[in-house]
């Protein structure tokens, strides 16, 4: 066995981010495309005429406020997790989940208001679109609430702390996305009456 000196150049590890976070962002892109498709379908269809006008349920203003609040509590929970304040994390994630459920209930009551003004799922597409857009957003929000409950369970198992933030970070990202998506949809529907 002889020893020999060798000079080897050292290539760097290419830049990379956490794979799960990256995948989450890609997922959000594809959900975004789904709603982009519906938005453009809405505009194209509206431009063709034969479009029944009606006003959006007043309750949607309240649910918008609720989802904004839930975004704040979620962000707060994340800050608490960073500082290892376990009690606060549990309470705030819990509050977010309750606000999320309140939002969903509000949306359903909003649908009731729509039916009271004789706008049904079946009928002119202008009304059907409102049901589809809110319903699909709600379906994604149910997924968000399930995710919140999973985070809550981890919080009770003391698995969320400043050294293990990935799960709650993913959840915060998704929750803010849902909030932003609702605000976008609401503004879109108000502007395109």
């Amino acid at each position, binding site marked *: *066995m*002889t*020893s*020999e*000196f*060798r*000079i*080897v*150049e*050292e*290539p*760097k*590890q*290419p830049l*990379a*981010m*956490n*794979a*799960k976070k*990256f*995948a989450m962002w*890609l*997922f959000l*892109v*594809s*959900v975004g*495309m*789904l709603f*982009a*498709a*519906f938005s*453009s*379908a809405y505009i*194209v*269809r509206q431009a*063709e005429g*034969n*479009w*029944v006008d009606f006003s959006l349920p007043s309750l949607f203003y309240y649910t918008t406020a609720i989802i904004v609040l839930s975004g704040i509590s979620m962000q707060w929970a994340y800050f608490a997790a960073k500082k290892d304040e376990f009690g606060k994390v549990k309470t705030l994630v819990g509050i977010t989940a309750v606000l999320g459920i309140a939002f969903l209930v509000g949306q359903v009551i909003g649908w009731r208001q729509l039916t009271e003004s004789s706008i049904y*799922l*079946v*009928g*002119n*597409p*202008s009304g*059907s679109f409102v049901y*589809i857009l809110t319903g*699909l957003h709600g379906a994604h929000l149910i997924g968000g609430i399930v995710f919140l409950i999973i985070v809550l369970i981890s919080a009770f198992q003391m698995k969320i702390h400043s050294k293990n933030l990935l799960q709650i970070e993913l959840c915060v990202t998704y929750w803010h996305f849902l909030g932003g998506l609702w605000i976008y949809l609401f503004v879109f529907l108000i502007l395109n009456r």
Partner: protein
Amino acid sequence: MAATVTHSPAEVHVHDEHGHDEHAHGNFWTTYIFSEDHKVIAKQFLITGMIWALIGGILSVLFRLQLGFPEANLSWLKPLLGGWLTAEGKIDPEFYLALVTMHGTIMVFFVLTAGLSGTFSNFLIPLQVGARDMASGFMNMLSYWFFFLSSVVMLTSLFISTGPAAGGWTIYPPLSALPQAISGSGLGMTLWLVSMALFIVSSLLGSINYITTVINLRTKGMTFTKLPLTIWAFFFTAIIGILAFPVLFGAALLLIFDRSFGTSFYLSDIYIGGEALPNQGGSPILFQHLFWFLGHPEVYIVLLPALGLSSEIIATNSRKPIFGYKAMVGSMMFIAILSFVVWAHHMFVTGMNPFLGSIFTLLTLIIAVPSAVKIFNYVTTLWKGNLIFTPAMLFSIGLVSFFLTGGITGLFLGNSAVDIQLHDTYFVVAHFHLVMGSASFFGMMAGVYHWFPKMFGRMMDNRLGYIHFWLTFIGVYLVFFPMHYIGIAGFPRRYYTWTTFETFSGFADLNMLVSIAAIITLSAQFIFIFNFVYAIFRGKKAPANPWNSNTLEWTTPRLPGHGNWPGEIPTVYRWPYDYSKPGAKDDFIPQNVPYSETPESNFPFENEQIKLELGNNGAIVVENKKH
């Protein structure tokens, strides 16, 4: 940030990182069925795709029998078709439409999307970027099983009493929305939609994984400019998929609501038997917009992986660097972007504003530019190369040929004025079968022949490969070239019979020729299947790098185990196309050979690069090398 330990890639380390060993532990179920290993999943996609290709091919021969031999008595097919034959032994007209529909759906989605991307993205991405596996093995496994479920649902729809979906692979409403329109629009269409929804989930899970792996799991030194063109192609394909498939999902969802919940997104003013349907205010054109916003990108989802595979194969077997690497990447990116702004060229005759038509004509014709760049680069790579005609190489050259002949007819169709005559004729059928169907199919075949040794550790038989190639190549041209004439004459696609029209009866001979060629081409595929299955069990054992290729997958052992490399993952120092480099010892230098080991062949700037790297981060590393 200077690293302290560096390894010469030439030496294989004995010590192993824990967590991945040569042989996956586990029982039959976790190893072969619910495996999370990307190589096993790739093979699952390949085999499922091949079964689908066979089914799709048989369906096409069935309807070619009707077109080529309209007077023939097909009652010998009774055991297969049962009630779908009429009393005179003819194919039932509605079933004819179902056959066309299922053939298109199966070939476009199940074979050339899942079978092609699913196989090669899964197999090659981790191996070529230098990763142990995909970013998420679990998601990858889910992706396959969603595809499997979707396949089961689609297969079931072939056997139900009302028949499978029959509104064409583009499922335009109102035909697809109203069960009264055609019997296939009943349960068959419902199953089609369920199956496609599952398919989209599978495709999105796959795409998210591919992109994440390419971006985040590359080995040391694997910068974007050192990626093989295959990886670039899979990468763009996955991006297109993530952007386009959700739109198809949206379109399908609205259709589901129209069909099952009574909404009117696509339906308006429809009278059946003198009775008006309640649906008011919908627009069938809306569906076409949504569908083709996916549909056109989808054709590139099908084509780009094939182009990537053939780039790699052509460079390897020309023993030459690929000509214009950056132009190849650039044109793929340009094609990917443009593919999202040309969808309305499928809708020129829907009564769109002629001005809008001109804009889409312009955008469509621009796609010819990057396409031409790619063809030019293939040809210049081949030019004066030391060509080695393996079956994979022949199939790649076949791809270039089809891409050219089929692409040229695209220029005719892209003109909104010319398209008025050609739309929905056999000219369109000829166009897309050459440019998409045959080109991608040849890319897939090339990929199977080329990577078979790495997949199964054995060699396929070359002689059978040549016979398979020539029969298929000539067969494909015999099938699709005559269709141009039939199409220009105005013969419409998706017509059950044409003998009743005086104008078209002159084409009986041509149609018969096409049908005979189709039967021969399909039969030739059995040579391939025999070769494939035989080689898995009995083929000659393959060396680790049978084609003297540069990319990382060939640095793995003959049968890469779980984790791909027994030792450390190799580091990458150069691009993948150092073939026949002047001065070099061999006519290929793998990507994991550092410049400092090849002073005889380095270009001045590459010598510079060694110094630069050493100067910049002080990564001069002195290492004990044992002899």
